[in-house]
């Protein structure tokens, strides 16, 4: 082992500490390595869940039995949902880019609790394995990722491992949240006051609070469902005096704020990218900060819009509909700020910018169709139809997924010290974007026509929309393959980047070495300016 690979001033990728090989990664407490561990894990499971999604769309290319029967289809959408939600989009940006870039962006050497950070990744992996173990001990669950009562404790399918797995992954999420809150409070560089902190850490901060406060609710709910199934305690079971709507309240008290866990860090990443590629100071820094906090706060109180047709009281319906419309305001503030940032900017049309602007486009479609669902009168008609599926894929995949890809293409040279092939990256983006719209836009029409979600079969009048949608899925997967191949290949063989700041960014992470050294900084920087000072 040479001296250079053990020195704390070499790249974190080359550093060899106590352990060698793969152990040097899976036992590393370095925040950058932990971030990459999450990235690699997500890449594997995203591929699995995406294949499940593609198989479902192939099944729906024609009415009746195409490649699978109803029970397989039920298991497919359940496992697709569990993996995509609990393994990919909920931890997504905080776990990968939050871990990697939070300390770099606030001028710290690591997160506040590095061992806890590694433990979070281990809990995450254990949770995934427990979920997948259901395949080998009784068959995949068929409840949908929402595990609604009373079906979740009556189905003969094996739901327990999925419930336990999601419960364990919840702990990972809580611990990451605690780590980030403490890191941001205690470890900002000298001179970095709250309002000199970049926007991505701000959104991580808002997200971390949701992770800490909302995740325990789903933990308890899932445990109660386990108790209901195993012991028959009767909290949710109407035959034992329980209330199934209580399950829905408890589930959505977490799972709606979880949408903001998914989307807020994505908004933070977009707020980092647009000033850099517009060569302009971010428009309305404080408005973005305060709207992030407002989204996190108001987002706690809108869960009931998932339950408009469940049998809640009329007064609750009005209250939740009003609160849902309220949360649209801070979201819209952000969109106006992003557009205003680009206005009269010197636009640099690179791959991260394409992802960021297409994020705004699809997020707006998702947001505006969300108002259709937040309105009581229209919700009743499109509830549990393909309209809902299209809406949440525009928000969750179009929002978080696009922001994730924007962030990955933006920070890639800093993470790996290599640059991807820009032409292939742009071709991948264009193919993916075209596939995405072809896949999900027809689903709005199908939903309005009355096609229900979660059905493996449909009436002949829905055939045309489903053909277009399924072809879109194939196109989108082709785009994803181009993107992933380009990035994976470039991480090992791409052109080397030695420039600390290839995009001309103003935030702190662009002042460290590329790739960063083990402890990030030889000397902790002192902050004097705001983070987006383009002149």
């Amino acid at each position, binding site marked *: 082992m040479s001296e250079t690979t053990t020195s704390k001033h070499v790249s974190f990728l080359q550093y060899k500490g106590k352990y060698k090989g793969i152990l040097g990664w899976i036992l590393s407490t370095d925040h950058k390595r932990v971030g990459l561990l999450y990235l690699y894990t997500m890449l594997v499971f995203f591929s699995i869940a995406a294949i499940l999604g593609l198989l479902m769309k192939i099944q729906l290319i024609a009415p009746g039995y195409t490649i699978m029967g109803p029970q397989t289809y039920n298991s497919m959408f359940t496992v697709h949902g569990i993996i995509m939600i609990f393994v990919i989009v909920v931890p997504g940006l905080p776990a990968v880019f939050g871990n990697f870039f939070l300390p770099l962006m606030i001028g710290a050497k690591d997160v506040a609790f590095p061992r806890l950070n590694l433990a979070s990744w281990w809990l995450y992996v254990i949770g995934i394995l427990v979920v997948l173990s259901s395949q080998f001990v009784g068959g995949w669950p068929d409840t949908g990722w929402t595990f609604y009562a009373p079906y979740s404790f009556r189905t003969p399918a094996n739901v327990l491992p999925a419930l336990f797995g999601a419960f364990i992954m919840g702990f990972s999420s809580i611990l990451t949240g605690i780590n980030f809150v403490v890191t941001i409070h205690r470890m900002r560089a000298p001179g970095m006051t709250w309002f000199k902190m970049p926007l991505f850490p701000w959104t991580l901060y808002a997200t971390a609070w949701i992770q800490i406060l909302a995740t325990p609710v789903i933990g308890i709910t899932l445990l109660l469902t386990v108790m209901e199934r195993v012991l028959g305690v009767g909290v949710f079971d109407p035959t034992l005096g329980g209330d199934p709507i209580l399950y829905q309240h408890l589930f959505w008290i977490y799972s709606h704020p979880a949408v903001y866990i998914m989307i807020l860090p994505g908004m933070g990443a977009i707020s980092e990218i647009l000033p850099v590629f517009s060569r302009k100071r971010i428009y309305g820094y404080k408005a973005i900060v305060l709207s992030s906090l407002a989204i996190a706060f108001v987002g706690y109180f809108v869960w009931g819009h998932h339950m408009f047709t469940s049998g809640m009281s009329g007064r609750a319906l009005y*209250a939740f509909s009003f609160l849902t419309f309220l949360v649209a305001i801070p979201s819209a503030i952000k969109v106006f700020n992003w557009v205003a940032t680009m206005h009269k900017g010197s636009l640099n049309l690179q791959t991260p910018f394409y992802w960021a602007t297409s994020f705004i486009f699809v997020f707006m479609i998702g947001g505006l169709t969300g108002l259709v669902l937040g309105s009581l009168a229209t919700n009743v008609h499109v509830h549990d139809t393909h309209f809902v599926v299209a809406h949440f894929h525009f928000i969750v995949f179009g929002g978080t997924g696009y922001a994730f890809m924007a962030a990955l293409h933006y920070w890639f040279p800093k993470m790996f010290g290599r640059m991807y092939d820009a032409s292939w990256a742009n071709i991948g983006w264009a193919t993916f974007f075209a596939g995405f719209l072809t896949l999900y836009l027809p689903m709005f029409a199908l939903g309005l026509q009355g096609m229900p979600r979660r059905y493996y079969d449909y009436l002949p009048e829905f055939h045309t929309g489903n053909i277009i949608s399924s072809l879109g899925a194939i196109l989108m997967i082709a785009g994803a393959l181009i993107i992933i191949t380009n990035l994976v290949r470039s991480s090992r063989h791409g052109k080397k980047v030695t420039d600390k700041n290839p995009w001309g960014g103003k935030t702190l992470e662009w002042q460290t070495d590329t790739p960063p050294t083990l402890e990030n900084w030889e000397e902790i920087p002192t902050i004097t300016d705001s983070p987006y000072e383009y002149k």
Partner: protein
Amino acid sequence: MSEEKLHISSYRSHLFVLAGLLLLTAASVAVTNLEMGPLNTLVAMLIAGTKAAIVLTWFMHLKFDNKLYAIFTTLVFVIFLLVLYVTFFDYSYR
């Protein structure tokens, strides 16, 4: 850290916390014998909330620590109460 004042609670203070918790536990058992309809839940929640406040304030030292912790803890409880309040828009008006 060395500039922060450490506070060590006395046995007497711990005994008062213990006595308070035992008394309130007895009270929460006792109120189950009263027929107050939906108010039973409210009273039980109030007693449980008081017990939690005693533990947080004295046993977990919020009273003697940096005020920031007290502020954040209070905010958490405010959010929790608001979540309960919004939930009862459903249960109270069915």
